[in-house]
């Protein structure tokens, strides 16, 4: 291994006497890609913000950062600031949140120079755009006129403008659609000699990282190289971490009657044919995954099945009849579970709302039992029933919507990216909840960019393509029974 280009020694962060990060030290060699992984709340975001001098003044930071330009105490933001941009480039998670909406993207990239009082080198900006595949004329446009994948690459251009030896990226692909993610990752890799990626998505980062650091409770729990990880010789906590993200195995669908039968379905949106000639059938308990690039019609398909968008052609047969869905028959789960709940209602009222509607009405005195039972079934027994949605974690919030769905007893559940905001442990808990709803007799359509998850969790996967032709890959699960979704996972985990 070559000499480290970037090393962090004894980084600790405390807040009001409570230790958040404890004695973190690691090196980065030239040309290396290091992944920092961990569950939500483990301290990886604090670690990243400490390296960027972004922690509030109320937190005490100690430890040193050593680069070719010398050693800086991480607690001294004034000294650290002069290194930022020149020694560490930063790529934020959500490209739209990273760019000031009132300024052009060119101004955003030029900030790399202006932040240090330098004159922007417009030739270099053009050269960066050419290298990252960005159109020059887009530079004068504003962020809201860009697509996410393009804007994320513009962010990378801004981060590498001053040629820092190290790029620090926070979940750089989670806000970008899956087909763009590979492109963004390769831009990152080629952008700077050393790359640090902070993520909770180990399968994604494991594909590009040379080394993985697992953070648990503010400490480094394990470090392993890629070779060790795939050969099964890495420390045990890493495999535990991988297993927490494993989707559970849902029960096979009940044989017999098709509760939903879609024949030759075509969907138009904005005068354009998005989907045509789509055929599939769902039995109770069936889980159908839907994948495809952004804008291909996944959300429109859900809207059509929910009865919100009339089909352009074809028929949707529900329970043997061609009709619109009845009230309470279809239920939608959203990516952002918190904003799908009334922020002023207590959890108990949110969960029991289906029991107050016309077809599922239950006497008031029976509701507390039903609520407790539903909450317990989805691992929420310890939650205070009077808390409001804002007090829940993303994972808990998503499971509250699942508990609500279990009381609503819909026959069809449409789930739009329900797990993409969740960390591995929360994700597998949410998927277990979905499997539970399927077992109770609901058919589920699960839309996601996460193909590995769909392959492992769904009975079938529907691949929507940009040429308006959808195709169902039946029994994907059966064809790869031993698939783990993680190619680095050993056959027999330690």
């Amino acid at each position: 291994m070559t000499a480290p280009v970037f090393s962090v020694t004894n980084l600790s962060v405390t807040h009001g006497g409570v230790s958040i990060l404890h004695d973190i030290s690691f090196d980065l060699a030239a040309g290396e890609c290091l992944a920092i992984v961990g569950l939500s709340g483990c301290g990886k975001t604090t670690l990243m913000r400490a390296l960027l001098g972004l922690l509030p003044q109320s937190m005490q930071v100690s430890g040193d950062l050593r680069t070719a330009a010398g050693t800086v105490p991480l607690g001294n933001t004034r000294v650290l600031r002069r290194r930022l941009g020149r020694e560490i480039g930063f790529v934020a998670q959500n490209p739209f949140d990273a760019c000031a909406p009132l300024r052009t993207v060119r101004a955003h990239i030029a900030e790399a120079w202006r932040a240090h009082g330098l004159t922007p080198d417009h030739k270099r900006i053009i050269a960066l755009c050419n290298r990252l595949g960005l159109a020059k004329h887009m530079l004068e446009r504003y962020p809201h006129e860009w697509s996410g994948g393009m804007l994320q690459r513009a962010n990378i251009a801004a981060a590498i403008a001053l040629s820092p030896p190290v790029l620090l990226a926070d979940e750089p692909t989670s806000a970008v659609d899956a087909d763009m993610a590979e492109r963004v990752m390769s831009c990152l890799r080629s952008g700077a000699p050393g790359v640090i990626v902070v993520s909770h998505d180990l399968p994604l980062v494991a594909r590009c990282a040379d080394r993985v650091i697992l953070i648990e409770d503010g400490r480094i729990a394990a470090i392993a190289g890629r070779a060790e990880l795939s050969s099964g010789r890495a420390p045990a906590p890493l495999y535990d971490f991988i297993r927490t993200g494993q989707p559970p195995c849902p029960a096979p669908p009940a044989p017999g009657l098709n509760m939903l039968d879609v024949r030759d379905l075509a969907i138009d949106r904005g005068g354009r044919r998005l989907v045509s000639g789509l055929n599939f059938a769902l039995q109770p308990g069936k889980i159908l995954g839907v994948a495809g690039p952004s804008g291909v019609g996944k959300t429109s398909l859900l809207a059509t099945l929910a009865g919100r968008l009339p089909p352009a052609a074809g028929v949707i047969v529900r329970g043997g009849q061609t009709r619109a869905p009845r009230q309470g028959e279809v239920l939608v789960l959203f990516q952002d579970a918190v904003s799908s709940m009334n922020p002023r209602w207590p959890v108990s009222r949110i969960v029991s709302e289906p029991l107050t509607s016309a077809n599922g009405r239950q006497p008031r005195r029976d509701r507390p039992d039903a609520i407790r039972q539903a909450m317990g079934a989805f691992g929420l027994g310890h939650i205070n029933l009077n808390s409001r949605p804002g007090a829940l974690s993303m994972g808990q919030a998503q499971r509250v919507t699942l508990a609500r769905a279990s009381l609503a007893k819909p026959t069809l559940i449409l789930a739009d990216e329900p797990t993409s905001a969740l960390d591995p442990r929360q994700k597998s808990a949410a998927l277990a909840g979905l499997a539970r709803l399927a077992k109770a007799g609901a058919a589920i359509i699960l839309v996601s960019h996460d193909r590995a998850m769909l392959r492992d969790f769904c009975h079938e996967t529907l691949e929507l393509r940009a040429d308006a032709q959808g195709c169902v890959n039946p029994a994907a699960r059966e064809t790869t029974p031993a698939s783990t979704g993680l190619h680095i996972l050993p056959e027999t985990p330690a």
Partner: protein
Amino acid sequence: MGRALVMRLGQAVLAAFGASLLVWLMLPLAPGDPVDMILNAQRVEEPTDQHIAALRDRFGLDRPLWQRYLVWIGGVVQGDFGLSWRTGEPVLSGLMRRLPATLQLVGLSFVISVAWSLGLALVAARWAGRWPDRLVLAYTRLLAATPSFVLALLVLQFVVVGMGIGLVLSGGAGATLIIAAAILGIDRAAGWTQLLRAGLLEHLARGPADVAKARGARPGRVLAIYALPAALLPWMTALGISLGGLIGGAPILEMIFTWPGIGEHVLTALSVRDVPVIQAFVLIAVLAYVAASLVVDAMAIMLDPRMRHARPA
């Protein structure tokens, strides 16, 4: 951008038209016979029948409502607000004689309050949580709770009388203008400072500011380039809205400092229910408000690229 501006202009014209209708309705909707109100304004105790009939004819009170409105608005468009019931002179010339002094006062106080709240909010946000911020917060809380006439009386007592700066009976002297404008402006600035400070702090905590800091930008630069433009948008809207209040608040201060503005004239008109004068004053204030909103909208459109579409998403 042009289309969005034209649409806002159209909306402003519609708003002005609607306002004129409401202002005009003040008269027919007011309880009592307008003739009685006219006679009252003229302090005529026992009118004859001929006198009443002459008044009805002269002010067009025997015609249908819509005709009266059309005649009135037709005159207003040409700058004719009718005759004052009290003095019988044209309403507009009476107002115009005093308006420049009021505009001086309101304009100067507006400039003072904008500069004052902008400066204080920037200082507070730059040193958020430290003593400059606390000082600014204490000031805004105190001033937001103090009515401007109380402040004016205190200043009159301790600065003008006590320290001998300015005049008690100003009659239009410059020093009094500055004192009155400063009181009106500083009092008004308290709420604006709170609003802008909150906006600055909010945008300092957002993604773009974080990314700028991660590029190595100094705190002052992050504040000026990333937080300020974004925080200015809602602040400017608030400025536009309270401009009307600024004009409305001026008469009382003018009375206290005997500033020869529109205040005394309008207060007299109010006390004798001289409706044409009140209508003209309210309409001028409303038009100033509509114009201010239009300017704010135009500035927002120039500042925010997302608002340049005729129908923002």
